[in-house]
């Protein structure tokens, strides 16, 4: 059912763990089956110097987190932000149809971690849906991690 690549990642997931002094942390719960993924990033010079994650989820979810961590390590924040679930699934050699939603988890958690980093460092919220620095997000995207 799963591709070779998925099985490889699952058997030896890369970059598992916690970065204690992370620059950004992003956590998502999977609304479909109720699992959870947390990404930690360390940023240096606009690049993701280190990335780690924790995953409570299925084989696909674990493989996705490992794949995402590999895809973004060393990349600029802009590059990392452009990561989509489609890219992740493709890098994994495809995912079974009913497991496609798991590939969201990885991209979403990473996006939240970057969002967290940007909020912290710039002292400002990069969300385009707020009118000024003090007002809240008007579209709700900050609650779902959908930062574009």
């Amino acid at each position, binding site marked *: 059912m799963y591709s070779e690549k998925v099985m490889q990642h699952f058997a030896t997931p890369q970059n598992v763990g916690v970065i204690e002094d992370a620059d950004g942390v992003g956590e998502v719960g999977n609304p479909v*089956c*109720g699992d*959870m993924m947390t990404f930690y990033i360390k940023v240096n010079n606009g690049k993701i110097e280190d990335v780690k*994650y924790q995953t*409570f*989820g*299925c084989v696909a979810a*674990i493989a996705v987190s490992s794949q995402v961590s590999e895809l973004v390590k060393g990349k600029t924040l802009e590059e990392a932000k452009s990561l989509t679930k489609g890219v992740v699934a493709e890098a994994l050699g495809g995912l079974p149809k009913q497991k496609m939603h798991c590939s969201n988890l990885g991209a979403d958690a990473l996006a939240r971690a970057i969002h967290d980093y940007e909020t912290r460092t710039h002292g400002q919220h990069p969300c385009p849906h707020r009118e000024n620095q003090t007002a809240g997000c008007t579209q709700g995207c900050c609650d779902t991690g959908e930062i574009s």
Partner: protein
Amino acid sequence: MKSIVYMDHAAATPVAPQVIEAMLPFFDREFANPSTVYDLGFKAKGVVDEQRARVAELINAEPEEILFTASGAEANNLAIKGSVFASYGKKDRIITSAIEHHSVLNSARFFERLGYEVAVLPVDASGVVDPKHLHKILDNDASRVALVSVMHGNAEIGTLEHIEALAALCHQYGVLFHTDAAATVGNIPVDVKDLGVDLLTISGPAFGAPKGTGALYFRRNTRLMPLVHGGIQERGRRAGTENVPGIVGLGTAASLARNGLAERMALLEELRDRLITGVVERVPHVVCTGHPRMRLPGHASFCIEAVEGEALIYMLSREGIYANTGSACASKALKISPVLGALGVPAATAQGSVVFTLNETNTPEEVDYVLEKLPQVVATLRAMSPIWKD
């Protein structure tokens, strides 16, 4: 130690060599259709009826009370749709329980679009249906109830139900009672006369018969509309050319299942308890699901906190251990198992569902191997789980 430790006998069982041997002649040599009017056909019909007697013997029924089906699911559908359609226009309620197999629940739900009401009996935290809930509904309006269906044993949590009490209650009110015994027949003694049921579902692959076999017990004179309409097979109650080799497999497996059942159960209970005790000792934060005593002999089921079942099953299979899970991620619907939900298990806990179902080929050494590997696998998964705090 054999290289594979298979502990998913609730999902599938291998067919024994003597069962295969018994089936073989009926594929090519004795292949006549049992409905034909010449000697070869009568012989085939005779063979089918011999198997009917063997299956009947396994559950203390009469041969003419056994209908052959292609699965436990079909037997459940036939029991429910067949008996409910038989009183169509006169009754409009069906009662079932919160931990039934999909084939029971969805057969009942099918009638909702025909205007029926379906009442679902709750279960307690160990999965047991308290007859008092049934009593209350029946006391209210038994005359509307077409059928009550409560399973005999649950394959996911191992719990056995108070079928005798439930059936007696139904009969007190003149209501038909069905039990899905797919998980129990062949594995524990099942006596339809003791149970007092009107309809009882049998699944072949649950006890070493080939896939594609099942049967329905229906007490003499129970009215049943066919599920598969058509010709005269099974005395008009189930059309389609009889699966003669499959039926021979079912009959042979039924006879084998009667041999030394008590000894087999004792052996399985010992293995099961060794497994349950060991897991509880070695894996922290584990919940045993189902009833501690009223359970299937070879059945051990757990929810392991902070890990997900599909991932767990995968890692176990890499160690040669084959088990099952009711995790949402492993289900097609990607929803919490309705059975675990009915027990009140929280959704996150239910994600860690793992079910071991043993048979008599399993050994204490295999159990010990599982007890060695399971804690390691759980530790590995917990190490990467964001919800694990130790």
